[in-house]
């Protein structure tokens, strides 16, 4: 148990360090949230008051976290495969879930920057008041949202390990999730049949928790749902991972050579 926790922590730090040293990912990471935030601010400013702008600002922040996770998770797995490290990771005796999970959580942590940058950008350029109604719950909802999105990334990474071309899936999922999870548009505006899909996606509850704690409301049920979904994603990922790995070994999908 202790060794597992240590491996998670060391893996997270290692991959976080590596991701933060990529000039390409770094530039994207810096620019993306600012673009998202600017578009969202202009859209919502036309609509009304200060509270709506903070609503948009928080939505844009989680858009950034999600985009970093969905696109980077696929790209990172492909990079592991390309640079030959995926085989080295699989050939180690450590349970592969404990190797893979910190990779995706590290990516989502980079998304923390998105949140901070978006809020500062909104404050400086658009004068948005950053008054938070429940500061403690706000502080709790952020890491919970990040970890739950990270575990969703973990679930996607399992598919990326098994299928060489699954990395493209991350890009495909990026924009639909913005809509389905209510980052910019309230879920009540979407067709009824979309809602069950939204409920299964952790970002839906992540953004709700952050908004409820910032704008006033009861974020605890949303936080609880985020934690439950994170647990579910991890459980499913761990259960499927060994089968996916075995299939990858049978079909020679771990390397490009």
């Amino acid at each position: 148990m202790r060794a597992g926790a240590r491996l998670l922590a060391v893996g997270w730090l290692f991959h976080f360090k590596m991701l933060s040293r990529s000039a390409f990912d770094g530039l994207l990471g810096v620019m993306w949230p600012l673009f998202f935030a600017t578009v969202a601010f202009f859209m919502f400013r036309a609509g009304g008051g200060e509270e709506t702008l903070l609503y948009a600002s928080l939505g844009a922040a989680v858009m950034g976290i999600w985009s970093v996770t969905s696109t980077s998770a696929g790209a990172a797995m492909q990079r592991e495969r390309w640079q030959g490290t995926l085989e080295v990771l699989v050939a180690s005796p450590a349970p592969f879930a404990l190797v893979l999970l910190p990779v995706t959580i590290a990516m989502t942590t980079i998304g923390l920057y998105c949140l901070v940058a978006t809020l500062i950008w909104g404050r400086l350029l658009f004068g948005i008041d950053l008054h938070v109604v429940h500061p403690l719950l706000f502080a709790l909802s952020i890491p919970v949202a990040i970890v739950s999105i990270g575990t969703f990334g973990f679930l996607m990474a399992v598919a990326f390990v098994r299928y060489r071309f699954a990395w493209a899936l991350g890009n495909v999922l990026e924009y639909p999730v913005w809509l389905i999870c209510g980052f910019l548009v309230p879920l009540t505006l979407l067709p009824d049949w979309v809602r069950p899909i939204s409920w299964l996606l952790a970002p839906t509850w992540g953004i709700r928790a952050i908004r409820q704690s910032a704008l006033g409301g009861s974020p605890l049920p949303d936080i609880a749902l985020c934690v439950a979904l994170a647990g579910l994603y991890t459980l499913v990922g761990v259960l499927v991972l060994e089968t996916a790995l075995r299939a990858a070994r049978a079909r020679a999908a771990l390397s490009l050579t």
Partner: protein
Amino acid sequence: MAVIEARDLHRTYKTTTGTIRRRSLQVEAVRGITFDVEKGELFGLLGPNGAGKTTTIKMLITLLIPTSGSARVLGYDVVKDAREVRKRIGYVFGGERGVYERLSGLDNLRYFAELYGVPGREIRPRIEELLELVGLKGREKERVEGYSRGMKQRLHVARGLLHDPPVVFLDEPTIGLDPVGARELRATIASLTEGGKTVLLTTHYMFEADALCDRIAVIAEGDIVAHGTPGDLKAGVEEGAVVEVEIFGIPEGAVDRVRELDGVRAVSVEEREQAQVLIVQTPADVELTHAILGRLNGANVGRISRREPTLEDAYVALVGNSE
């Protein structure tokens, strides 16, 4: 009990061709390989590119599941007991891939030490010891992307030995290294068996297998075509002779015509500056020089010599005959 046992290993890859009309193809990379490696032995799998060496080693280190056949390492099945096998083996492959280039050598070694379950308090001294062994002491804090190819290769070796495994697999470890770097790495490899480790090495360098290995299996087209000590393999060709003919522009079809001569065991061509050298292996008591020249259709011929065969000739004959 042998440390490594491979029994009738087969591995087939499925691949596709075409864009619109996709066609599925099956490539048989390994076709029934059987061998044993004993404790403390340095065993070589020798063969040309594409012979099936890397596929074989990947099945033994649990990265590929054999299509059929079985393999055991230290008594553990490579498919059913993959985790037990992984705990006890080290794996080093050649080339520049397999390390995180944006981070330092030290970062890489610390991370892999955790993955291989090296106890926390032992990590630092173990890394220090390995940095000394592979000659990276003093450079460990630099980013790997700034390392030379030889340094990256030595980092691979250190990574593969972090958990002090009793069995080490080395897949073409000296590929692309300069002669001095390759010689230093070969000395490190030789020292592994002195410390009691069992080593399986793949290479396509004849002299490397000769210099390092206790026993060699020559692999070609996915099958073992000969095995034994380097001395055994040499003995197989010592009763022969080699005729070398320097030619300035080999006529089309000449090599095939020479190959058809009675008594010819193997034919190969080496490029040497402006000329090519036709190397023909024959039995010792057969004189074929005139017959060979007769098959060259009046080509511009330079120096002609006859010599005793070397281990490299044995390798060329074995690999050539399987094609």
